[in-house]
């Protein structure tokens, strides 16, 4: 089929498409159309706040278009959910590995630190026991280092408030 025939075809098609222009809505349809639109706008304003989706549609149409992809293509939902799950799993795995690496590094530093060094003395069980007994926790944090640790029965050092109860049966 040559170009001239194609053009002729399209002329016929265009004539055929003219039929669409003769399709008209019921008589009087447009008489009240604008009135309906305006009353719906008024009703929406009187109704107060619009729904979240309506506001999103006006303020962020790209987000609505993005959400509509999920509605029209169910396969995309699966792919998106799978990728989110994979992301979560990878974050968990990565954080666990990071924890292990940090612990291993701490263990190495404990092993390599000299016995008499301040570092070693601070992490030694004796130091921890001493701090527990006084209620003061030694820390590198200058603010909290002097803060007494609250105990279950009040402030540390307030043990003098409690008198030891000695039971001595009266001798008759």
């Amino acid at each position: 089929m040559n170009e001239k025939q194609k053009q002729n075809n399209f002329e016929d098609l265009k004539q055929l498409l003219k039929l669409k222009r003769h399709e008209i809505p019921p008589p009087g349809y447009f008489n009240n159309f604008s009135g309906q639109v305006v009353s719906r706008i008024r009703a929406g304003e009187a109704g107060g706040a619009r729904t979240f989706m309506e506001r999103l549609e006006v303020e962020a149409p790209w987000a609505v278009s993005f959400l509509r992809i999920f509605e029209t293509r169910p396969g995309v939902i699966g792919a998106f959910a799978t990728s989110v799950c994979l992301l979560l799993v990878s974050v968990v795995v990565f954080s666990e590995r990071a924890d292990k690496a940090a612990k291993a590094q701490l263990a190495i530093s404990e092993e390599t630190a000299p016995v008499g060094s301040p570092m070693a003395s601070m992490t030694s069980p004796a130091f921890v026991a001493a701090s527990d007994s006084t209620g003061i926790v030694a820390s590198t944090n200058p603010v909290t280092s002097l803060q007494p640790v609250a105990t279950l029965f009040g402030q540390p050092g307030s043990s003098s408030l409690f008198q030891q109860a000695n039971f001595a049966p009266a001798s008759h």
Partner: protein
Amino acid sequence: MSMIMSETAPIQDSNTPAGMLEGDLVKSARKGDLDAYDELVKRYQERIYATVYHMTSNHEDANDIAQEAFIKAFQALKSFRGGSSFYTWLYRIAVNKTINFLKQRRNKNHFSLNDLDFNAEHDPDLVALISDKTPHREIGLSELQKKLNEALMQLSEPHRMVVVLHDVQGQSHEEIAEIMDCNIGTVRSRLFYARQQLQGYLAEYAKPA
């Protein structure tokens, strides 16, 4: 003669919405003037409705979508910067709403066709097409209308939109490119492809002479 003229074409008062320019109406509507917006709706309701109707082939759907397009346009008027005409901007909203609606309604076409007006039977092009070109000479206009709508619904939404805007509504390539937010070359290629497709679907009704 002058009396007749004054009766048939009343002088528009520029203080009433009907006599205002489009730009002034848009400004007033942005401030919340619903009378001004009512006038804007009246000016474009037929074209917007027709576009949506030709895309959906369903009067009820076209009514809903066209109304929603006007409501959304009013709500979004504050974001209208005036980079394009209000008409083009409004059209873009209606086109996007229609395409989104059709994507959701995919494969659930339900026709609710409007009646043909009286002039269709007297349109010389259509009469010639039916009496001379078609092998099925007994075909009526309403059947041809149904076949035409079925063929249009076979096209993808962007291709159908281009055919509707250009061949049915008579918009230029430039206007369509602006409405559909694409370049003119894309409009031309979509139009050519859509016509070819339609030609195939309607081969028995639009044969070369």
